[in-house]
């Protein structure tokens, strides 16, 4: 690929790009906090407001760190991390990617958990979310599949590019983790308040006949918005 123009230099002449760049960088920085909407409203060209923004970012960052419960299981074969994400956090993330309001509203109906998986073995580790079992004291809980999300997006005619971005933020439903490979993404369930357990089983070895790895996470909860 040839590199005919320096896109960064072109920012200087790009329509409103400089201002929007600053706005987007700020939104990007705060996308993990619960104050995105407030931030975006506050954003303006005045230096005073920008200073206020920075202070608020620092404050909300501290709060969100304190509020986030991170679940980690690690053994010599695997490390798996689960981080519950609040509706406001996810809304901020997708708003930052310019998702329309009806799509944001749809995401609010689900609980999001960011998953990180690291295959620490020297062999293949098989991810298959059909081998993940979630249950609370009363019933089993189903993961919302990519196909189900596609149907939801179809109902609101979400433009393809947003569907694509959303899809890539989800954890793959099946994957042959190579030795040392790390991948991550979100899983989603219907929004609920009761705690639940998750048992994840991974087949191992190229032929899937190695000793399965079973991880159990207890007492997971959907993250609530800080203002609730």
């Amino acid at each position, binding site marked *: *690929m040839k*590199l005919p123009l320096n896109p960064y*230099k072109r920012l200087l002449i790009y329509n409103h790009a400089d201002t*929007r760049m600053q706005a987007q960088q700020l939104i990007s920085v705060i996308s993990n906090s619960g104050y995105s909407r407030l931030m975006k409203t506050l954003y303006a060209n005045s230096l005073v407001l920008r200073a206020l923004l920075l202070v608020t970012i620092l404050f909300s960052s501290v709060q969100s760190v304190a509020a986030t419960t991170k679940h980690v299981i690690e053994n010599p074969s695997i490390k798996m991390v689960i981080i519950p994400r609040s509706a406001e956090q996810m809304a901020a993330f997708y708003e930052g990617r310019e998702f329309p309001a009806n799509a944001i509203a749809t995401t609010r109906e689900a609980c999001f958990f960011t998953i990180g998986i690291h295959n620490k073995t020297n062999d293949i580790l098989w991810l298959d979310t059909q081998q993940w079992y979630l249950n609370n004291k009363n019933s089993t809980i189903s993961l919302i599949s990519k196909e189900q999300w596609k149907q939801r997006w179809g109902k609101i005619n979400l433009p*393809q590019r947003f569907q*694509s971005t959303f899809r*890539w933020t989800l954890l793959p439903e099946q994957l042959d983790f190579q030795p040392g490979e790390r991948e991550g993404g979100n899983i989603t369930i219907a929004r609920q308040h009761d705690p639940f357990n998750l048992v994840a089983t991974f087949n191992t070895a190229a032929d899937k006949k190695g000793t399965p790895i079973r991880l159990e996470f207890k007492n997971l909860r959907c993250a609530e918005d800080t203002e609730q």
Partner: protein
Amino acid sequence: MKKILPLLFIIIFSPSLLAESGLPKGIIKITPRIAPALSLENMDGEKFTLKTNSSHWSFVHFWASWCGPCRKEMPAIQKLIQAMSKDKLKFFIVNTAESEDTIFSFLGAVAPDINTLLDRDGLTTEKWKPRGLPSTYLVDPAGQIQYVVIGGQEWQKPQYSQFLRQLPINNKVN
């Protein structure tokens, strides 16, 4: 023994063997498969098409600004592109489904010399079925994917450019 040593030396350090036995971190040889179509415009509106029967290998990379490893990896890819500017390797850096504003602000901050291709609706990325983002493929001159690269890599390290430079143009990858 003295007669065997030179032979061993040749076998061990033969470039073709180095490629297969000592792949740089993250690069995996796969059973070759035909690369999906790729024909996209860059930020200047110029169209780039991945061709079969070309005279060069192609480095196809999918990324998005929201992906943490992409932010870390993109400067290294920029350095690799610069380091290999005189080599017969074509780079197809593909942004997945983001707006030009987002791409401008991201690349302006982390890799200002990269002029990415725009997969505006994300459908090209869907066809390639990457394991996740970022994802990189090495496509031979015949248009077959020969290697996949898992996760973000430190492309600025010489072992990667050395590996890319010795990829055989005659397609005979074992």
